[in-house]
């Protein structure tokens, strides 16, 4: 069953067709990677999924419901969690409060339940020992993990990760891959990612965008073997 799908989804900025007529289908439970060269329209596409950018044409269906014109906050509450490409935590607030803000609306003001879920999410990404620090005092890698904890705490049906490994050290990337693998099966994940290693090791399926259109779609092996993708993105080494 498909959790998220788009039909003819397009976004034009003046004459520029940032995203053009994308039909996309994400089955529930899958880990899907969205890749493509810079300027391929990944960020615009995800912006339309999450409601940050209005679509010029086409529609977005989430969980059987047309959400094309729904404002972003309603999509989040419908079960879509979104983590920012550029780390965007509340630097002047404690780590716990960052996560609590992400999901207080889910517990309906039950602070004990909120605290329990906050602890659980921090434990999950491995920064429970930093719970009382200010988010701004965390290292960059930990801030990225905090972002993910904020998303996880919402127990979303779809977790959208926008370039989660950007700027991480190699050892941190290894941990990140393990984290994504542990989440697979619990929720559907859409991963926008530059690091092809991460993609190959985590994704069940890959969608390749190029010049605003879907260039190819398939399993990691199929994508690796696809000549068009190699030419456009992976290089012809």
């Amino acid at each position, binding site marked *: 069953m498909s959790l998220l799908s788009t039909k003819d989804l397009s976004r034009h900025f003046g004459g520029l067709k940032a995203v053009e007529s994308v039909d996309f289908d994400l089955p529930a439970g899958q880990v899907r990677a969205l890749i493509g060269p810079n300027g391929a329209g990944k960020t615009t596409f995800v912006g339309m999924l*999450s409601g*940050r950018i209005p679509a010029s044409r086409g529609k977005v269906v989430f969980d059987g419901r047309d959400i094309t014109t729904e*404002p*972003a*906050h*309603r999509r*989040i*509450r419908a079960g879509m969690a*979104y983590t*920012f490409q550029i780390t*965007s*935590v*509340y*630097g*002047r*607030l404690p780590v716990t*409060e960052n996560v*609590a*803000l*992400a999901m*207080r*609306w889910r517990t309906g*003001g039950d602070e004990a339940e909120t605290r329990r879920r906050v602890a659980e999410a921090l434990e999950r990404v491995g920064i429970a020992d930093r719970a009382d620090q200010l988010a701004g005092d965390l290292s960059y890698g930990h801030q990225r993990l905090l972002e993910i904890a*904020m998303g996880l705490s*919402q127990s979303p049906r779809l977790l959208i990760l926008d370039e989660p490994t950007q700027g991480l050290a190699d050892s941190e990337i290894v941990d990140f891959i393990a984290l994504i693998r542990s989440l697979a099966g619990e929720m559907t994940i859409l991963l926008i990612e530059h690091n092809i290693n991460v993609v190959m090791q985590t994704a069940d399926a890959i969608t390749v965008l190029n010049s605003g259109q879907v260039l190819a779609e398939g399993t990691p092996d199929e994508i690796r073997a696809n000549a068009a993708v190699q030419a456009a993105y992976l290089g012809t080494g």
Partner: protein
Amino acid sequence: MTDMQKSWALHLGIIALLFVLQFILPAYHHGSLARIMVLTCYAMGYNILFGYTGLLSLGHALFFAAGMYGMSLSIQHLDWSTGPAVFAGLVAGFAMALVIGMLLLRTAGVAFMIVTLMFAQAGYLTVLYFGEWTRGDEGFVIKQELRRIAGFDLSDPTNRYFAALLLMAVCIVITLRVVQTGFGRVLVAIRENEERTRMLGYDIQRHKLAAILLSGTMSAAAGAAYGLLFGYAGATFASVQYSIFPLLWVLLGGAGTVLGPFIGTLFMFYLIDLSSELTTAYMLIAGLVLVALTLFAPQGLVGELRRRTLRWLP
């Protein structure tokens, strides 16, 4: 004690202290403090929007004046008794905040400031335009015999002091409750990072409108109380000067702290009071102290205290 217990103890303690002070203070300071407490409510209303939500208004005199004129005009021209008149002041402030708030939500950043400034200026000119009723700059005195509530004569210094203290206590409790609940925390989140907050599933516009309504109504309550307790309503209170005051008080005391508005108002009042005893160039002294404070305590007095030692201060 948990942080929450500590903060209740501190704030209720300060209210108790102010209660006791009424029996001790000499007449002059007694009167000043009553005035400061009413103005503190104005600053607290301002602080909800500026300190907690991060929206800088340059036109809060509009709400203060809405409360003051809503109250005083209905006493003066509709012959209402004090209770309903105060209520009319609150309704005027709330309605003003609702209308202006809806329009303000279409703006952000600098535009927000300019639009608040413009509306307040329009409000000020409206007061002057209807001079037949408002008596414009000259204003009007509300007769002593009309300033009674439940049998208490509010022009009596003791009653006036207690009325001011009661109002301030209510504002403190409301603010404390707001900052302790999820609603207040979302306001802070909006101040810190609006886009992130939207993408966590919060309706930004609805929260901002609620903040404007609360802020405007609290400011109007202060305006109504000021007119009632001191028996005068005049256009000065709608002027740009009265839009800037709460900003100064809150900045000095500490934006985004519950006690900041009180400390800021108290400090500024006595700063001007004491320096004007020394010299006619008292604004020079006041100005220099303000410059020094912004340099060395940019987060305000209470904000600085929180940063250095009392991390739990709300």
